[in-house]
């Protein structure tokens, strides 16, 4: 091995990164691993197959990666995968993990905020806190998507549930909590009418619009999700904007507005924050 490799003992991570980065810069013309992994696909276009075959003949690195990927594709699936997919089928339809995780987190944080708000308000109004927030709700049902951006868990920061801390704020909070009932149970389509009504009565209530948008998205009605999410974006506090943009990007992608989705993801990707990495990844997938 080279002198660079000899430093593996000292700083293996950095050495691997440096070496790989230098190597990668010289491979600008190589196909990415997603393309290499469909080399044997019956859907691959003839001209692309020919171009790939030509490239693999002269590029030992890609030939090696392609062979390794093919070996992995031929491996029999393990029992865990078999059971996991069966479980998805049994549940009827389940959302892909990159939506399930954010939603579970959103629900948890949203309900937590609701409980906090109600607990701080006048004692007589609003439902009891324990009726609101089961912390460990089961993974909700939703559509299977053919496409996933990523499976990283995310959270939606929920700064407040009510509109203001005015006299009617607790009633509004209680109404939101009620409207979120079906949502909590994973019945997103059932949650839509009440959330829509709430968002119409309280247009400044960003959370009603946000949950309405996310419910539409998970009920596989992405086009209906666009307007409420846009409205939520106009009214939400600054810390929430990245979360809303993340869902908007998904709604746009699922509505066929790939270009708008990509632009939004690019903006998220350029901004340091918890969404940066996954947005960059998603944007790369859309390219």
């Amino acid at each position, binding site marked *: *091995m*080279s002198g*660079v*490799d*000899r430093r*593996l*003992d000292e700083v*293996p991570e950095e050495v*691997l990164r440096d070496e*790989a980065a230098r*190597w*990668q810069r010289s*491979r600008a*013309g190589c*196909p990415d*691993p*997603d393309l290499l*992994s*469909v080399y044997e*696909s*019956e*859907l*691959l*276009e003839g001209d*692309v197959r020919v*171009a790939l075959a030509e*490239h693999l003949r*002269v*590029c*030992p*690195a890609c030939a*090696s*990666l392609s*062979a*390794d*990927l093919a070996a*992995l*594709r031929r491996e*029999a*699936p393990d029992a865990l*995968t*078999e059971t996991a*997919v*069966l479980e*998805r*089928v049994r549940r009827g339809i*389940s959302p*892909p993990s990159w939506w399930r995780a954010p939603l579970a987190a959103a629900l948890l944080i949203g309900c937590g905020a609701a409980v906090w708000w109600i607990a701080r308000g006048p004692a007589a109004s609003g439902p009891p806190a324990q009726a609101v927030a089961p912390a460990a709700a089961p993974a909700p049902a939703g559509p*299977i*998507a*053919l*496409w*996933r951006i*990523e*499976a990283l868990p995310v959270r939606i920061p929920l700064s407040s549930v009510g509109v203001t801390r005015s006299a009617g704020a607790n009633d509004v909070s209680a109404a939101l909590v009620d409207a979120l009932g079906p949502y909590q149970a994973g019945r997103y389509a059932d949650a839509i009418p009440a959330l829509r009504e709430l968002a119409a009565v309280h247009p400044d209530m960003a959370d009603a619009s946000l949950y309405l948008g996310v419910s539409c998205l998970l009920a596989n009605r992405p086009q209906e999700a666009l307007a409420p999410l846009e409205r939520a974006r106009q009214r939400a506090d600054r810390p929430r904007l990245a979360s809303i943009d993340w869902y908007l990007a998904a709604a746009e992608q699922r509505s066929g507005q*790939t270009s708008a989705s990509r632009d939004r993801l690019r903006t998220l990707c350029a901004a340091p924050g918890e969404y940066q990495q996954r947005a960059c*990844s998603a944007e790369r*997938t*859309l*390219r």
Partner: protein
Amino acid sequence: MDRFETVYRQHFASVLRLAVSVVGRRDVAEDLTAEAFLELHKHFERIRTDELPAWLFVVVRNRARDFWRREKVRDRHARWVASRPEPSAPPPAGPMWLRSDRLSPVQRVCLELHYAWGYTTEEAAERLGLTAGQVKGHLQRARQLLRDLDKEKAG
């Protein structure tokens, strides 16, 4: 075990293998497989046993075509074909550690996806049908093997 589950276990592996061969990515292939069996579940009483697994294969192929169309996979491929350099200018073979026979295919793939292509462990995991923890484990073992190999050569 009900009849549907029996049929599922009988055909799952072949359906997933077909899906992987068509779309490449394991995460997408698992989605397609789930969709195919879900479709089967809806029409289970009408489908004859001797129509399987061909019936499932048709669903997978149709959904895979939808996926390619929706994700504009063909456009991405066309862009690569248009922008690739002449085959007469091959890129360098790459560091030896990526082609070491001491490493298993999955270790080499994890190393290359993570270090050379910059995929996060989660992104690599999705494509390979692994968990992020498993990818981290493969990377760790691969680094250890490379260190051992280096010591052997030095000694």
